[in-house]
C-alpha cells in the first residue's frame, strides 16, 4: 500500500462534492470536494506500490483540463490508468452537472 | 481437508462440575445437555453442546452446532422462558465449547443457517425477557457455533486457558482463505488484536466481562468451581442491574481503546439520525 500526494494550481472553484466508484478489484473510488484554498490537492491510497510516475502523469493530464480547486481522495484497488481517468472524468462531470 | 477435529470434553466437564449432572434430555439429541442446579440461592439452567460420536447427523459429532443442535437449543431455552413467564426469570448459563457450525451438504440443504439463527433468537429472547444470560467460555467458541450458542448472552466470561479461543474461522481454513501461512496468521494476531485466536488477546477487545484466571479448565477442583460460581453470580448481579441489551460490550476501558470505531460510528450515526 502506498500514499501519493500531489498539488495543482486551480482556475475556478468547485461548487459541490461528489463521490464515484467503488474499491473493488481493478477499480477505485473518487471523493471530490471543494478545497479550503485556491489550489487542488490529491491524495491517492493505492494497493499497488511503485506507480508514482504513472499516477502523476494521469493526474497531470486530468488537471490540465479540469482546473477545479478540489480536494480529491482516491482509494485505488489496482485500477488501470484508463479506469482512473474514466472515474476522474465521471467525478468532474458530476461536479458540473 | 481437515476432518480431524480434536474432540474436547470441556463442555461436559464443566456441566458436571457446576451441576453434578450429565444433563441428558429425553427425546433430544445427546449433543445438547441441559441441567438445572442451584447457583447462589436460586435455581439456574446450564446448557452445553457436547460431542457425540454416534450423533444421527455425522457432521455434528465433534462438538459442532448443527441442525438438531440449533433447534434443540432453541426449544430448551424457550422452555425456560415459558417457565419464567409469570415468576422469577432464572439465570441461563451457556457453557461454550463449540468447534464450529456443522459443515455439510445436507446441513445447508436443510437450513443450518436457520437452525443456528433459531438458537440465537431464543437466547436473545431470553435476555430481552429478563433472564440473565451468561456465556462461560470453557473451550472453543468458534464462528457460527458461538453465534448460536453464547454470543447473545448479557455477559461473556472466559476461563484463562490456552485452549479457550474465539475466532471467526479455524486457523487452517483462515490461512487458506486469506492466502497466508498459519505462521503468518499467528504473527499477524500478535500485532492486530481482532486477528488473534487466544482468549487473552480477545480480552483486549473489551467484549469480555471477566477473564477468570488461575482455574484448571480440564480438571477443575472444588476451589476452581467455587471461583467460577462466584464469577457467575457477580455477572448475574451485574446483568440484573443493567439494561437487557448488549451495550455493556462497548462500555469497558478495553472497548473504548480497541472498539473505538464501533463507538464512534454509533455516536455520529445518532447525530445524523434525525434531520437537523
Amino acid at each position, binding site marked *: *500500500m502506498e500514499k501519493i500526494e500531489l498539488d495543482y494550481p486551480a482556475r475556478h472553484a468547485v461548487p459541490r462534492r461528489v*463521490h464515484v466508484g*467503488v*474499491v473493488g478489484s481493478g477499480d477505485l*473510488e473518487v471523493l471530490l470536494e471543494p478545497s479550503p484554498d485556491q489550489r487542488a490537492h490529491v491524495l491517492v*491510497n493505492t*494497493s499497488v506500490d511503485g506507480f508514482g510516475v504513472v499516477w502523476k502523469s494521469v493526474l497531470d493530464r486530468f488537471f490540465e483540463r479540469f482546473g477545479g480547486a478540489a480536494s480529491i481522495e482516491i*482509494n485505488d484497488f489496482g485500477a488501470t490508468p484508463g479506469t482512473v481517468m474514466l472515474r476522474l472524468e465521471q467525478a468532474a462531470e458530476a461536479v458540473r452537472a | *481437508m*481437515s*476432518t480431524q477435529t480434536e474432540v474436547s470434553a470441556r463442555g461436559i466437564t464443566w456441566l458436571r462440575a457446576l451441576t453434578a449432572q450429565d444433563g441428558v434430555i429425553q427425546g433430544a439429541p445427546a449433543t445438547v445437555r441441559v441441567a438445572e442446579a442451584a447457583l447462589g440461592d436460586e435455581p439456574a439452567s446450564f446448557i452445553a453442546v457436547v460431542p457425540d460420536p454416534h450423533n*444421527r*447427523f*455425522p*457432521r455434528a459429532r465433534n462438538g459442532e452446532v448443527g441442525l*438438531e443442535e440449533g*433447534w434443540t437449543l*432453541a426449544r430448551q431455552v424457550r422452555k425456560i422462558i415459558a417457565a419464567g413467564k409469570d415468576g422469577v426469570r432464572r439465570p441461563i448459563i451457556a457453557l461454550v465449547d463449540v468447534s464450529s*457450525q456443522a*459443515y455439510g*451438504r445436507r*446441513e*445447508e*440443504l*436443510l*437450513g*443450518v*443457517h*436457520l*437452525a*443456528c*439463527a*433459531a438458537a*440465537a*433468537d*431464543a437466547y436473545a429472547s431470553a435476555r*430481552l425477557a429478563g433472564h440473565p444470560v451468561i456465556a462461560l467460555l470453557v473451550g472453543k467458541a468458534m*464462528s*457460527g457455533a458461538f*453465534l448460536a450458542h453464547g454470543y*447473545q448472552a448479557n455477559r461473556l466470561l472466559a476461563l484463562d486457558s490456552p485452549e479457550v479461543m*474465539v*475466532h*471467526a*474461522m479455524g486457523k487452517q481454513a483462515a490461512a*487458506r482463505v486469506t492466502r497466508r501461512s498459519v505462521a503468518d496468521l499467528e504473527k499477524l494476531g500478535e*500485532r*492486530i*488484536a*481482532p*486477528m488473534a485466536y487466544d482468549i487473552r488477546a480477545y480480552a483486549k*477487545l473489551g*467484549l469480555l466481562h471477566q477473564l477468570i484466571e488461575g482455574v484448571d479448565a480440564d480438571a477443575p477442583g472444588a476451589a476452581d468451581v467455587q471461583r467460577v460460581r462466584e464469577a457467575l453470580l457477580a455477572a448475574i448481579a451485574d446483568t440484573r442491574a443493567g439494561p437487557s441489551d*448488549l451495550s455493556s460490550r462497548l462500555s469497558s476501558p478495553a472497548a473504548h481503546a480497541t*472498539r473505538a*470505531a*464501533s463507538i464512534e*460510528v454509533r455516536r455520529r*450515526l445518532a447525530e445524523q*439520525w434525525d434531520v437537523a
Partner: protein
Amino acid sequence: MSAVAAVRNHRQFLGRTSFIEMGARERARSILDEGSFRELLGPFDRLKSPWLPLQGIVAQADDGVVLARGTLDGKPALVAAIESIYQGGSMGEVSGAKIAGALELALRDCEQGKPVLPVLLLETGGVRLQEANLGLAVIAEIHAAIVALRRHVPVIGVISGMVGCFGGMSLAAALCSRLILTRQARLGMNGPEVIEQEAGIAELDASDRALVWSLIGGEQRHAVGLVDDLLEDDAVAIAASVRAAFAQGLPRQERSAQVELYLERLAAIDPQQPLDGPALRAIWHGAAQS
C-alpha cells in the same frame, strides 16, 4: 453489440431495471420512495476500517455499507445496503457497526412510538477475516438488534445476488421477519468452497454449480419455505415486494421461532439416506408457514 449490452437491451425490452447491476447506494435509493433518500455516514464522513490499512489493504470511505433514511409509501424507513464489490461485502468493525447502530436507533424510535421500517440488503460472505473477531462480535450485535426490533416492526431482508448471503450474516437473514430473494441469490451458512475445504470434495464439489444452486439457490429456498418471496432481477418488483412485506404486518410467528415445526421436519429426515433439492421440495413443499 457486447453480451452485457445485449442483456441490457433485452431487459429494457422487457421493461425491467436490473437490481443486481446497481451498486449499494443505487439499490438503497431504488427501494425508498422517490426523492426521499438521505444517506447517513456517507463516504465524506470517512468512517473507514481502522484495521485494513494495518494489513496493507486500501479501505473504502464508507466501509462498504450504505445507510439511508427515507420513506416507504410515506412511512419513515431505514435501508442498510451492503456493497458486495468491496471486500466481498464482508462485515468489518465499521460496516457492521453501521448496520447494528442503525437498527439500534430504529429500535429506540419504535420504543418511543415512532415506527421505522427496516430493510436489509444482504450481499455478503459474512465476517471480514482481516477483522475477524470484531466482525464476529458485530454480527452478534446485528442479530441482537434484529430480534429486539422485530417485536415492533417486521424486519425485511433482500438477497438479490450475485454474492448471496453467507456466514454469520446468513443468520441475520434467517432472523428477518420476511425474506425476499431473486433467482440469482444464494443463501447458506457455509459457502460451497468452505464446505469442500472443511468436509472434503466427496461432501460437496464446490465447482458443481448446478448442485450448489439446487441446494441453496433462491428458487430452492423459496420452494421449501425458507424464504417468502422469489423474484426476477427487477428493481421495481423488489421495491414493490418490500412494501407488500411491510403491509402484511408482523408475522404470526417468526420463522426462527417455529421450533416445533422444524424439529418435526428434521425428525422425519434420515441422514443415512440420500437427500437432494428436489427430494426435499417434495417433503417440505407447502408446509405451514406464518
